[in-house]
């Protein structure tokens, strides 16, 4: 067994971990390297452990930007699954561009679901700082579409 020989406890690491526990009010902290792994727990709330499942699963068509902007305070997410469009019809300019100021309720995107085009309206006034989707691509429910700050 690989770890039978473990000769040294690195008390610095433990001290730092303990300090972190106190500082952060955690009850558990796990850390790793080599196929890295981190685990923290607080109170009686259980930790989210590593996903025990392999497989090719979970590949949504447009997953790329999701993790970066899902928690952004200015994010506008898709209220339904469908095809997103940035223009009202193919020959017109985009409804909004990065840098545009929008007012609350102003249509910013369209999502087509079952031949029905649904207007996505700005939930607040502000400046469009990022558009996270390309016209004509599928989006899932809850997928970040654009950022209004």
């Amino acid at each position: 067994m690989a770890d039978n020989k473990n000769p040294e406890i690195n008390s610095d690491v433990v001290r730092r971990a303990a300090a972190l526990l106190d500082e952060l009010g955690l009850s558990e902290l796990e850390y790793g390297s080599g196929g890295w792994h981190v685990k923290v727990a607080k109170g009686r709330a259980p930790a989210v452990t590593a996903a025990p499942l392999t497989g090719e699963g979970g590949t949504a068509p447009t997953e790329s930007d999701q993790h970066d902007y899902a928690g952004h305070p200015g994010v506008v997410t898709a209220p339904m699954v469908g095809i997103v469009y940035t223009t009202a019809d193919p020959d017109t300019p985009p409804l909004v561009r990065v840098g545009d100021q929008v007012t609350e309720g102003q249509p910013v995107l369209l999502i087509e679901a079952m031949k029905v085009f649904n207007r996505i309206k700005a939930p607040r006034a502000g400046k469009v700082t990022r558009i996270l989707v390309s016209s004509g691509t599928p989006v899932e429910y809850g997928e970040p579409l654009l950022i209004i700050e």
Partner: protein
Amino acid sequence: MFDKILVANRGEIALRIHRACREMGIRTVAVHSTADVNAMHVRLADESICIGPPPATDSYLNIQAMLTAAIITNADAIHPGYGFLSENADFAAKVEEHGFAFIGPSPDHIRLMGDKITARQTAVEVGIPVVPGSDGVVADLDEAKVAVESIGFPVLIKASAGGGGRGMKVAQSAKELPDALDDAKREALAYFGNADVYIEKFLAHPRHIEVQILADNHGNVVYLGERDCSLQRRHQKVLEEAPSPALNQAERHEIGAIAVAAAKKIGYRNVGTMEFLYENGKFYFIEMNTRLQVEHPVTEMICSLDIVREMIRIAAGAPLGFQQKDIRFSGHAIECRINAENPVTFMPSPGRVGDYHAPGGLGVRVDSALYSGYTVPPHYDSMISKLIVHGTNRNECLMRLRRALDEYVIDGIETTIPLHQRLVTDTDFVNGDYDVNWLEKQVGDE
């Protein structure tokens, strides 16, 4: 054959369908609500689409989202599983309108059997036995006597306007008939403002027996034996077995032949289950389920067939690869539905699963989307696992089931495993001596 199937469901049945697809070389699309982003059916699928927030009405029951997901993933076919949209004729119709194959019966058949009254009428027309009753309202004792002559005692006198068990009286014999009729009329008037009553055969101790049929698009129909689903609590099946300990070979073939003939007459296709009450050697049709059943695995175990695979083959237009004479029933199978519930109070117990260890070895099958660290969401049905055990006979099956239940570890949440552990050592159950009322008496619901 299809290249890609969208599985319009969640939980163990989504995983079950995924497995069948994977074994046929068909790619799968999982749909899921935001509550199920880490679910097993999502993790294992080739593609996944989030279709809405946790409430089922906005996600798993959202027809538009479901179809949109099929469109944008380029699926060929949709399997609805059970529950959710599986018996929604409009959904099935829309699936077909949009050019997808619906892996199930035609929308017309779903509609026909979805309505209790037309289902019963259809049953009568195609020769399926139903609960005998009077032709409508019985006005007085003379009419009641005439009706009872063909029905036979005991009978149940029911208020035409009734419901909820009120205005119902049992007459065990001709002697009791006059009083029962009077009482029923009086109660009917008192409760519902209408004294009209009708008479039905009273089944005091029926078993729930259902017949699984399989029909292709070319007129071939077979039955895959019966399942005994009499162990129920509040009309929810708890444990199912096949074959039924109550039927003999002749009854099995009789009801199977009736089911097959009926399915042929109405031009039925894909899977279907005819549910019967069974008492004193007689079958009485209740309803037909036009979908895959939760308890289909017990049939698979005794027939050595993959029912989901057959559904997919049929939906793709393939003829059945076997005839009735090729179906062989072998041994005995029992399924325990394991729910995330307190095993005594039946209070739901969603939450995070700690240690998880499924039983293994000979004759043991687990259909479950659980894994260690998975969180059972509070939004959906509490059934989290099906433990299915096969043995060469009922006794071997029971012994194996006991040891498998003892091996099963699901920590962190409460489950109904202890209920099943009690059941499989109960003398009545071991003797096969139970009916649809038995379990509720056992667990003190009555």
